[in-house]
C-alpha cells in the first residue's frame, strides 16, 4: 500500500507539482527548438524519456561504485552512451523524425533535466524508484513540450497533428520570437493557476 502511494504521488510530482520544464525551468533549449510541431514534441519527449529512464536506472545501480569526485564525468559518459543508442535507433526506424529533430537528438546529452535527475535522485535512491523517477520526469517533460507545441502548431502552422485547420498561419509563432513568447505565456499561465487559492477541497489540500 505504501509503495503504491509512492508511485502515484511521484507521478503527480513529475507531471505537475515538480514538472521539470514548467516548474523547475530546466531543459529550455529543446523546449524552444522542437515545439513547432506536436509530432516533434512527442518524439523529442519520448526520446529524452527513454534516455532518462535508462540513465537513472544505471546511475542508481552504480551509485556505490562511482567516486564522488568524478561523478559528473561518469554520469555524462553513461548518458551519452544511451543518447547514442537512441540516436542510432531513431535513424534506423524513424528516419523522418530523426531528420526533423536533427541536432537536438545528440544534444539530449547536455539536457539539464537528465543530469539534474541523476544528481538529485538517482545517485541517492535504489534502482526501482530511480527508474520510476525517470518515467515520471520524462513524461512531465513530454507534457510540457506538447503544451507549448499545441499553441505553436495551431497558431504558427495552422495544423493540428499535421491536419490542416484551414486558416492562414501566423508565421510569428513558428519562428524564434514566437517560441519565447509562447513558452513565457504558458509558464505564466501555470504560475497563475498554481497561485490561485484552492476552493473546492478544504483542509487537506492546503499545501505549504
Amino acid at each position, binding site marked *: 500500500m505504501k509503495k503504491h502511494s509512492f508511485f502515484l504521488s511521484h507521478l503527480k510530482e513529475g507531471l505537475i507539482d515538480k514538472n521539470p520544464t514548467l516548474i523547475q*525551468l*530546466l531543459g*529550455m*533549449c*529543446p523546449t*524552444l*527548438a522542437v515545439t513547432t510541431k506536436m509530432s516533434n514534441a512527442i518524439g523529442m519527449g519520448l526520446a529524452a524519456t527513454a534516455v532518462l529512464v535508462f540513465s537513472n536506472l544505471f546511475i542508481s545501480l552504480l551509485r556505490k561504485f562511482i567516486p564522488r569526485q568524478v561523478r*559528473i*564525468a561518469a554520469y*555524462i*559518459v553513461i548518458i*551519452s*552512451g544511451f*543518447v*547514442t543508442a537512441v*540516436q*542510432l535507433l531513431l535513424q534506423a526506424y524513424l528516419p523522418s523524425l530523426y531528420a526533423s529533430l*536533427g*541536432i537536438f537528438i*545528440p*544534444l539530449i*546529452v*547536455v*539536457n*539539464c533535466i537528465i*543530469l539534474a535527475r541523476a544528481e538529485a535522485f538517482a545517485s541517492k535512491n535504489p534502482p526501482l524508484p530511480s527508474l520510476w523517477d525517470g518515467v515520471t520526469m520524462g513524461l512531465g517533460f513530454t507534457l510540457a513540450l506538447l503544451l507549448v507545441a499545441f499553441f505553436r502548431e495551431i497558431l504558427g502552422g495552422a495544423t493540428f497533428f499535421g491536419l490542416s485547420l484551414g486558416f492562414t498561419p501566423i508565421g510569428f509563432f513558428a*519562428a*524564434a*520570437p*514566437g*517560441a*519565447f*513568447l509562447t*513558452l*513565457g*505565456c504558458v*509558464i*505564466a*499561465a501555470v*504560475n*497563475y493557476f498554481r*497561485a490561485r487559492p484552492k476552493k473546492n477541497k478544504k483542509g487537506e489540500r492546503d499545501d505549504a
Partner: protein
Amino acid sequence: MLDIFVLMLTAVLVENFIFYRFMGCCPFLGVSERPDTAIGMGAAVTFVMTLSSAVTYVVYTYILVPFELTYLKTIAFILVIAALVQLIEMFLRRFVPALYGALGIFLPLITTNCAVLGAALQNVDYGYDFVHSVVFGFSAALGFTLAIVIFAGVRQRMFFAKPPRAFRGFPLTLVAAALVAMAFSGFSGFSLGNSAEGFFHF
C-alpha cells in the same frame, strides 16, 4: 577569404546561436541578470568554444574517421569538451590568476552548455575544414556573447517594471527574450552568398 567573412557574419547575426538555433538558452536565460556577469559568461564561452572546435575537429578527422568510429562522435566530443574545460580551469588557475578570477565561476557551467557541443557537431555535419571549424566556433560564440550582453541590458530595465503577478520572474524574462529575438529576426532575410548554402537545413 570572402567566404570566411560570410561565415562569420552569418554565424554572428543571421543565424545567431540563441535566436535562430536555440542553442545555449540555459545560460542565456540564467546568467543574464547583470551585464558584467553576461560579459564574463560570453568571454568564457568564446574561449572554450573556439578551442573545442579546433580540438574536436582534430579528434574527429584523425582518430574517429580512420578507425571508423564516427558513430561515437557524441560521446567523444562531450568527453573532449569536459576534459578541455577542466584543463582550461587548471591552466588559468595556475598561470593566469587574473583571468581565472574573472571567468572561473563560469567554466564548470560550460560543459553542459549545448552551444559548445552543438557547434562541434555542426562543424562535422557541414563538413567544415580546420580553419572553417575554428572560425565557425569563434563567431558562433561571438553571436552568443552579443545576444547575452544585449539581453542583460534589456533585463536591467525589467527591475523597474511591474508586470502582472503571474508574469513575474521567468515568464517576463521569456517575453523580453521574444522582443530581442524579434529584433534579431530582422537579419533573417539575408542570404549571404554561396557558402551560406546548406546552412538553412536544420
